[in-house]
């Protein structure tokens, strides 16, 4: 099975439900293990594994380039052992592979034959954000389950349910605001609700939803870009990008957030171009190894576009 959909839409929840349905409440007894694998070049890889008697959950992308080794070793080991517990409801074990879309091609190729060969002992559930990066042979072997983000009404129902269980009353304006802010991500919505409840216990009056620090920081960067275009400003922006990168914010997210903010603040005719270059440099960033170059290149590009637009409005 392959579950795919945006984050916070409930993929994990559905997987857990499937497991419970298959094996009963026994799957909830989890233990966390650390396993060590040897890469071909004798490097040690440590991988965290969550497992119960019936299933095992791994995030192979933790191993970076060596994810193929993890997949090969671990799956074969599980596949070649049979379920020993006679009371088990099913004869097979389940392997859950998180972030399947960040698996390398090699690792995905390694999955292909194992999936078929050991059908009787093992079933695989893949969990991914999108199917674009999965190779076609894997997709054709799986039952695809698209998990869409919940719509505002459904989210409101969930938030009200949480409020009822807590228990406190949730004003509808507050609920609406939270839903708008979370953009379909239910996990985020519930966390925001919790944070708000801590700040203002009665949840009435004007609410200020605290944005994550990096988001405000990105917005600041965007404002800097729009307000002045000069080499000095580029240096300033560069320092800020370094700050963001050193706090482990993924460069794609930085680029996307800054670009969205810049687009909000410029003239209609420029918007398409700015997004075009954002997409262009995003790909380069993926292919290249040093992210900061591409972020800067984009900033300079946007600045020059904007400058030209201001100086010669007719040509833009």
């Amino acid at each position: 099975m392959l579950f795919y959909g945006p984050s916070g839409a409930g993929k994990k929840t559905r997987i857990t439900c499937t497991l419970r349905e298959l094996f009963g409440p026994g799957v909830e007894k989890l233990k966390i293990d650390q396993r060590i694998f040897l890469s071909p070049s004798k490097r040690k890889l440590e991988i965290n594994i969550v497992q119960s008697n019936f299933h095992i959950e791994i995030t192979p992308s933790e191993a970076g380039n060596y994810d193929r080794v993890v997949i090969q070793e671990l799956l074969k080991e599980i596949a070649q052992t049979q379920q020993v517990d006679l009371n088990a409801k099913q004869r097979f074990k389940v392997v859950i592979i998180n972030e399947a879309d960040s698996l390398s091609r090699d690792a995905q190729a390694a999955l292909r034959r194992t999936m078929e060969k050991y059908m009787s002992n093992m079933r695989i559930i893949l969990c991914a954000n999108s199917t674009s990066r999965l190779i076609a042979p894997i997709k054709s072997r799986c039952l695809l389950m698209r998990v869409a983000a919940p719509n505002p009404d459904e989210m409101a129902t969930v938030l009200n349910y949480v409020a009822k269980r807590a228990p406190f009353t949730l004003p509808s304006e507050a609920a609406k605001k939270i839903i708008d802010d979370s953009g379909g991500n239910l996990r985020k919505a519930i966390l925001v609700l919790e944070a708000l409840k801590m700040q203002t216990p009665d949840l009435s009056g004007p609410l200020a939803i605290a944005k994550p620090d990096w988001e405000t920081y990105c917005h600041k960067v965007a404002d800097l870009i729009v307000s002045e275009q000069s080499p000095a400003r580029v240096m300033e922006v560069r320092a800020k990008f370094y700050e963001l990168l050193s706090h482990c914010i993924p460069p794609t997210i930085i680029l996307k957030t800054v670009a969205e903010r810049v687009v909000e603040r410029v003239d209609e005719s420029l918007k398409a171009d700015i997004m075009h270059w954002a997409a262009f440099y995003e790909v380069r960033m993926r292919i290249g190894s040093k992210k900061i170059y591409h972020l800067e290149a984009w900033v300079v590009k946007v600045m020059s576009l904007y400058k030209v637009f201001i100086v010669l409005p007719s040509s833009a």
Partner: protein
Amino acid sequence: MGHLEQAKPQPFWLCRVNYSGELSEPRATSLLSIFVSPDNFRNRVLELNASDERGISIVREKIKNFARQTPRAQAASSDGKTYPCPPYKIIILDEADSMTQDAQGALRRIMETYARITRFCLVCNYVTRIIEPLASRCSKFRFTPLDPTSSSSRLAYIAQSEHIDVNSTVIDTLISTSSGDLRRAITYLQSASRLSSSTNPPTPITPVDIQEIAGVVPEAVVNDFASTLGIETDSMDVDGKGGMVASSFGAIQSKVKELMREGFSATQILSQLHDLVILHPTMNGRQKSTCALVFAEADKALCDGADEELWILEVALRVHKALTSS
């Protein structure tokens, strides 16, 4: 099977498919049916696929060792039947295109030296990824996608023996959504039959079910997206060119966000949009080719792992521009 029977005297086999990347024709299936005796299978066949470690060291040790042993005498089969048994062993390298160049290079000499007692059989999707010296040592078999009539008869056969109630429109949908890939069609059929039998009383399988299982974006959604970009769709008046409002940046952006929230796969959206644009009745050649360029670039970007939302937005904006500027 006929052509494989004739092929037996050939020293090596290389089965390949056309490099358009068609998948899951019964390559592995037809291979295994040559060595039919179950008793001889174990000591005469070595099967390695991408799930096994296949670096150069394995080629040098495991494969070489297996290749140089003389095959044992043919065991009398336990079930009393006689099976054809050729006087050599077979090494099957499945998914050979994922082997490294070095490993393939190490195979060259092994293949020749032990040709009398061991035959190699490489299976791959793309023959271009097999190094030239190996490819020239093999006789090649190209497996083209199954034609619709034979896949439909196979599907009907499966449905009949599994007592699944399907009509011909469902089978047609299966074949069109899986685009010649029989395994995918069978997987879809299996999932659909599970779904339909889970309700009580069982509901018949409809083409819409198949499309949902296949992960196809519903036509209404694609049409809606297309009309936001300014492509005329069937739901609009044909002469409504003047009435078409060129949607603003904001509208397109929010539409893309909405699509992403629904969790559709970007490549799927792109390919369906592509079909819509290419077969569009009123767009002119220049517009279509500009759009096709955009789609190609986006596909490359997505393959490189670019961000989906940014690229769908990029495609949307450029298609929009192509349509409004000319």
